[in-house]
């Protein structure tokens, strides 16, 4: 996979290029907006990592002009600004996602894959959060390299949890998601399902918060 990195800071650029190459990606690295645009006009990149604070031409300007030229290449913005306005502006100008400095390479790579999947139209078939991936078609759940195809109740439970990663879901909420109105629900039905999933993987695939409910973690630890 060929990636275009537009980043002016030599330290970040060098380390990031090295990290991505270690992930078997080929990286073209340009240090300012104008060079970046030039590289983009040649094309052939699967994804663009765009820093916003660029000399010469601001990242948002670069984004604007490539989208204006009809280039649909996926763009992931790298920014040090937590300011919501700038992020919203980036997304409105057609960026696919953003990541705030400082970040871990693992998180960046996960986001890159997610952007690519969405771009290729595969997004609808796979749910991914942190180290957990759920294939909606095959019902296959994978966690830390372990893959198991789940029975339908367990799959439905996992899907309910992964639809809102990082959110604590109460038992009652999960029951409502899993069982129809007329169905008789055993009081410990959800607990049994969770116990079963945990047994197949590791205990911390589903986190319990005493007195509140269950959740799956949003970003890998």
């Amino acid at each position: 996979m060929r990636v275009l990195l537009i980043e002016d800071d030599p330290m970040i650029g060098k380390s990031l290029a090295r990290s991505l190459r270690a992930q078997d990606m080929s990286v073209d690295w340009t240090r300012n907006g104008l060079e970046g645009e030039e590289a983009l006009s040649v094309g052939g990149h699967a994804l663009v990592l765009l820093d916003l604070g660029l000399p010469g031409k601001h990242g948002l300007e670069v984004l604007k002009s490539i989208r204006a030229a009809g280039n649909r290449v996926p763009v992931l913005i790298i920014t040090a600004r937590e300011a919501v306005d700038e992020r919203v502006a980036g997304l409105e100008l057609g960026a696919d996602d953003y990541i705030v400095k400082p970040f871990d390479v693992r998180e960046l790579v996960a986001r890159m894959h997610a952007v690519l999947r969405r771009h290729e139209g595969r997004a609808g078939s796979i749910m991914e959060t942190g180290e957990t991936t759920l294939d909606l078609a095959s019902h296959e759940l994978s966690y830390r390299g372990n893959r198991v195809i789940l029975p339908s109740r367990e799959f439905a439970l996992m899907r309910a949890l992964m639809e809102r990663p990082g959110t604590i879901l109460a038992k009652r909420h999960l029951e409502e998601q899993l069982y129809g109105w007329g169905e008789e629900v055993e009081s410990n039905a959800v607990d049994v399902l969770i116990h079963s999933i945990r047994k197949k993987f590791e205990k911390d695939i589903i986190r319990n918060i005493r007195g509140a409910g269950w959740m799956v973690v949003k970003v890998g630890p």
Partner: protein
Amino acid sequence: MTSLRNATLVWLTVLLTLVGAAAVVISYEFAQGEANDLLDTLLHQIALNVGPRLGTPGTLAHEHDPEDELVIQIWNANGERLQTSHPEIDIPQQTEAGFANARAGGEDWRSYRLAEADRSVQVSQRMAVRHEIAEHAALHAAAPILVIIPLAWLVVGWVIGKMSGRLTTLAQTIAARGTDSNNSIPPDGVPKEITPLINAMNTLIVRLQTALDGQRRFVGDAAHALKTPLTALRLQIENLEGQITETARTRLSDLAMGARRATTLVDQLLAMARYDGAPEEPQREQIELVELVKNCVADQIVLAQRKEIDLGITDQENGTIQGSSKELRTLFANLIDNAICYTPSKGTIDISIRPGGTGMVVEIADTGCGIPEDLLPRIFDRFVRAAASGVVEGSGLGLAIVKAIADRHGIRVTLTNRQEGTGVIARVVFRNSS
């Protein structure tokens, strides 16, 4: 300290006393001069009109002060005294005709001698009479001033009291100002003479505000500028991980930990710069408090479970609050993070959310080491930490950020040591109006 009232009273009294004294002296002098002229003319007239016989003084009106009586003496050409109005008083015949001062019977006299061909008539009057007239005149001049002095005290005291009352009101207004208030002090109702002082204070407020803003911006910008090198550092550490020996990897994880700590500190400095004394009002959104706290717990659950801490929610009664969800999330995240940091492995953290007397109350109770009592009053200050560095990681900024956010929202946050067992209870009390 100089008192405006006392200084005014003292100087006014001195001035009035001087004016009074001058009035007394001048009145005395003038009155004496006038009396001299008048009485000398009187003596002269009487001497001219003395007949051959003198009346008996005893028949004169008795109610008259005997001191006021004139002594009239008549001598013949040979110098023998023929008659006298007061035989008991013997004023010698003056050698020169006309006016003269004499002394007799232990008193001073003013005499006029009229020398005629066969006799000489001498009319004398006590000097004391003249002094008395002058003294009376002086007293009359001084009396109003003696009355004015206490009156002036009353009036000046009242006026200055009224003025200083306004100054006291002004002082209370100024004392009630927050450090972040950049409104100028209104000069209304303040004496005109104080206006330059207020103007100077207002200029100073603007200058201080600018300096404060500059400092806050600097901290924010500096923290922000640190993010890029920190990102690079962390990327480089990650790059190294796959390429070194097992022993070196342990050291590298220490290095990675250091980089993470630096990142946390940078984030905290940014938060501090954003919230502490920032003039902008926080956003006001309707927030489901249980939802917000649960989200914060969700964010920290990995950290807690890694330490095998049982982090749970004991009470969760619904209630809405108003405020910025972003800032309040930071507030609860910091409190929960503190609880996790200070609670040893296998400890318990209980969170309860319920309505209290004034509004919703959130309590975060841990089973950590607690806070030394002498540190409690300062625990919200920057860089004050409950544990020695090295025992528990942290920057000492977390609670300062909590305080800054709480102040902006009008929320009360208290930290107390548990009564039973060890640990801290952090209590966040919302006000219904807030």
